């Protein structure tokens, strides 16, 4: 989000899901949409059936490739080169939108234009491994479309240069004027039901609800008035820093609600150690997760079906969550637990109904001020910004301009990933999800039929690589990196290119994040490079 927020002044999907149907070109990069956002993929398929062109850029032959006009199989971690090369073609063939650039952007001619010069299709081909004809064709298709949408996920962001990747995507959209209108924009697809919401709600060390910076005194004062208490002045630690901070900064106690960092964060060994070192760990969850097992106190929360509230989906749509059943045994709604704890720590939060909290959110962040539960109920959710009761919500952003004034071009240079294959670790490991399981598997692995169709961890490897290593389909392999090793079955496939292996991270018995690095972080947003690590694969 940092990337988009820097460029536009706000970070979220610029368009809404139904608009995908009217895209005449869809550019999907670093997103296994058919498996990870299946319902968004259905809209894409619908658009393709209606005649839209589809470009899929992914190191793996993901299922969406079947519907693609062209598939670009770039080497993992070379997205900047690919995108810069496409933009080089667009400039060279004069397919840029001069009017848009002049009216709505800044920084096009200041070095940006020049920075593209070196990224000829030939250079692009050399770095990415993609034939230059395909790069040229993709560039023409994108620039020639009238309503193109770009869709990406963690395949773009989970890199040591994730923000750079996002900058490139933004540059591409800006130079062709494909923003600020229906069915044209830049759309990061959010991977969890309420990532958008938890970001919106200010669960960030540097921002209050609504992306308002904690370091700006006037903002802080407003929140102090709202909450009736003095607030801390300096920014807090981001998640990855919490596990690294030492000395005076050292974190002694943690309260983790509904997360399982042991499996979801890079370098499992390191995460476990950091958590064990804490003086006190409280975990609030619905299952005894790998993280909860390390806790001093475990508090049983309620799942989505057991409470009222709202989720905000990937297209900024706030929708009602309704209670259907009672929580099991003594388990309680998380909001009750938080307010009880707060009272005991001397700060009383008093709400009679969940909607009162929602009302307070509207006071904290004007973009949601126009929403009420009854509106959400009647209108099937509302997309922020929705500042007033009579505002219809906002299906697409940046109509007629950007929050920060003008969209900014950013000069981006290709940097290789933090780890590159060598003799000791010759394979590139990329991690992600698959269709049947979700995240660390705490929910789906407890659903018996799902576990029956996808019972165990596996590693996808190109059949030819496997043949060289004498690995047969279904054989056990040992995969090791500089951090650790796991054992799991090999799945021979045409999906990854040669030299690339893929491991889903849902399985605790062979956790992919034992292998990934917690040090390779994006300098700006501190996201770990989960999509590129190097490993060695051996038959056992």
């Amino acid at each position, binding site marked *: 989000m*940092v990337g988009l927020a820097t460029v536009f002044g706000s970070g979220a999907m610029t368009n809404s899901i139904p608009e995908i149907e009217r895209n005449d070109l869809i550019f999907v990069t670093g997103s296994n949409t*058919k498996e990870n*956002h*299946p*319902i968004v993929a259905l809209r894409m398929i619908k658009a393709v059936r209606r005649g839209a062109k589809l470009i899929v850029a992914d190191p793996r032959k993901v299922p969406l490739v*079947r519907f693609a006009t062209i598939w670009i199989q770039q080497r993992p971690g070379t997205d900047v080169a690919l995108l810069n090369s496409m933009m080089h073609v667009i400039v060279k063939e004069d397919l840029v939108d001069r009017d848009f650039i002049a009216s709505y952007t800044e920084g096009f001619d200041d070095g940006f234009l020049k920075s593209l010069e070196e990224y000829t299709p030939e250079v692009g081909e050399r770095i990415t491994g993609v034939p230059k004809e395909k790069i040229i064709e993709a560039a023409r298709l994108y620039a020639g479309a009238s309503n193109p949408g770009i869709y990406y996920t963690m395949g773009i962001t989970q890199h040591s240069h994730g923000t750079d990747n996002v900058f490139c995507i933004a540059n591409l959209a800006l130079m062709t004027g494909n923003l600020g209108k229906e069915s044209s924009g830049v759309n990061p697809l*959010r*991977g*969890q*039901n*309420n990532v958008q*919401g*938890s*970001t919106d*709600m200010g669960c960030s*060390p540097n921002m*209050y609800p609504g992306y308002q910076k*904690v370091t700006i005194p006037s903002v802080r004062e407003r929140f102090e008035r709202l909450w009736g208490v003095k607030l801390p002045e300096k920014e*807090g630690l981001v*998640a990855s820093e*919490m596990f690294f901070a030492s000395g005076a900064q*050292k974190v002694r106690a943690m309260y983790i*609600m*509904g997360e399982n960092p042991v499996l979801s964060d890079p370098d499992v060994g390191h995460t476990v150690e950091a958590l064990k070192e804490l*003086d*006190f760990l409280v975990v609030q969850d*619905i*299952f005894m997760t790998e993280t909860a097992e390390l806790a001093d*106190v*475990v*508090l*049983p929360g309620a*799942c*989505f*079906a*057991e409470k009222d*509230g*709202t*989720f905000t*989906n*990937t297209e900024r749509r706030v*929708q009602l969550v309704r209670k259907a059943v009672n929580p*099991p*045994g003594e*388990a*309680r709604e*998380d909001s009750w637990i938080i307010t*009880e704890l*707060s009272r005991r*720590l001397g*700060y009383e*939060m008093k709400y009679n109904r969940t909607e009162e909290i929602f009302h307070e959110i509207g006071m904290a962040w004007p973009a949601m001020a126009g929403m009420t539960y009854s509106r959400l109920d009647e209108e*099937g959710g509302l997309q922020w910004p929705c500042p007033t009761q009579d505002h219809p919500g906002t299906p697409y952003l940046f109509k007629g301009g950007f929050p920060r004034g003008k969209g900014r071009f950013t000069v981006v240079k290709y940097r290789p990933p933090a780890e590159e294959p060598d003799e000791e670790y010759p394979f590139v490991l990329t991690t992600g999800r698959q*269709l*049947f399981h*979700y995240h660390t598997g705490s*929910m789906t692995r407890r659903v*018996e039929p*799902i576990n029956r*169709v996808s019972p165990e961890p596996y590693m996808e490897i190109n059949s030819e690589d496997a043949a060289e290593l004498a690995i047969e389909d279904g054989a056990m392999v040992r995969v090791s990196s500089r951090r650790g090793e796991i054992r799991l079955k090999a799945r021979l496939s045409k999906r990854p290119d040669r030299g690339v292996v893929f491991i889903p991270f849902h399985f605790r018995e062979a956790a992919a994040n034992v292998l990934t690095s917690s040090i390779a972080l994006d300098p700006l947003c501190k996201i770990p490079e989960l999509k590129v690590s190097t490993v060695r694969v051996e038959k056992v």
Partner: protein
Amino acid sequence: MLTLTIDGRQIEVKEGSTVLQAAREHEIYIPTLCDDPRLEPYGGCRLCLVQIEGVPRPVTACTTPVSEGMKVETTNEYIEGLRRTVVELILSDHPNDCMVCEKAGDCTLQELAYFYGLRENRFRGERRQYAKRDANPFIERDMEKCILCGKCVRVCEEVQGVSAIEIAYRGFNAKVCPPFEKDLDCEFCGQCVSVCPTGALMGKLSLGKGRQKDIKKVDTVCPYCGCGCNLTLHVARNEVIRVSSSPETLNEGWLCVKGRFGFKFISSPERLNTPLIRKNGRFEEVSWQEALDHVAERLGGIRDRYGPDAIAGLSSARCTNEENYLFQKFFRAAVGTNNVDHCARY
């Protein structure tokens, strides 16, 4: 806009609409079994036959585009006779075991049989006999109840883009099945289950869990990825037994395997159901009073000793906005630190 007459009523509709769409827009009922507005018109069940002035034979309303001045009759003795024959023919090749059928109460065929009062059947004859033997864990396929409306085949191809099933064989022996009649092996989105008008396709998880009339339905939002699909939870005896989704929602009623079939974790016996405190290296069940007091005491102690910044919180992209709001507010206002983050803020 075009003007046409349906059953003597003059109505205006958009050009390019079908007669069926036009009738529906104006709340004129035409029975159908194979129509779904989200799928391409099919014209297979022949229930929506109507008569159009100047057209020699009855035509299906679902496939016939409207034209200016068209005069349509949707019901008369002749048309109802044809529809009655069609339903009677279907029932002549149907198990008619509504007493034990999971779909009873939510079955379009049952409704039509009731509507046409078909107790007797003039066409009693051979019935297809198939073994139920699909070993997949999600979808019960009872092909004796299949009426070949083709919705499952179409949704799988047109919407899901998978084409896991197709109609095989000809004539009376036509049968919807995966290639070579193997067990279903697909994305298990269950779109086919959601469009099936009879009990031919049912979710295995909900079999025998409750009759339609006893089910409470609650609309909510999916807890998995960020698409924000709308779910309707079907609840019987404080248990979620089935998930569906209405076609009028953001996701047009479509769900994925997780959204449709991934609900069993709610009632999992592994759910945490009491607060736990680690005592001498082992978790012990405690009361809320004890647990909350203990947490407050320890956090308070650490804050007093090391300052508020020695405490950090990780919130959840799985929790609601309200909970996330409270969580960060708790850290900032109650604990006094900005050390609050969630795992996927990137």
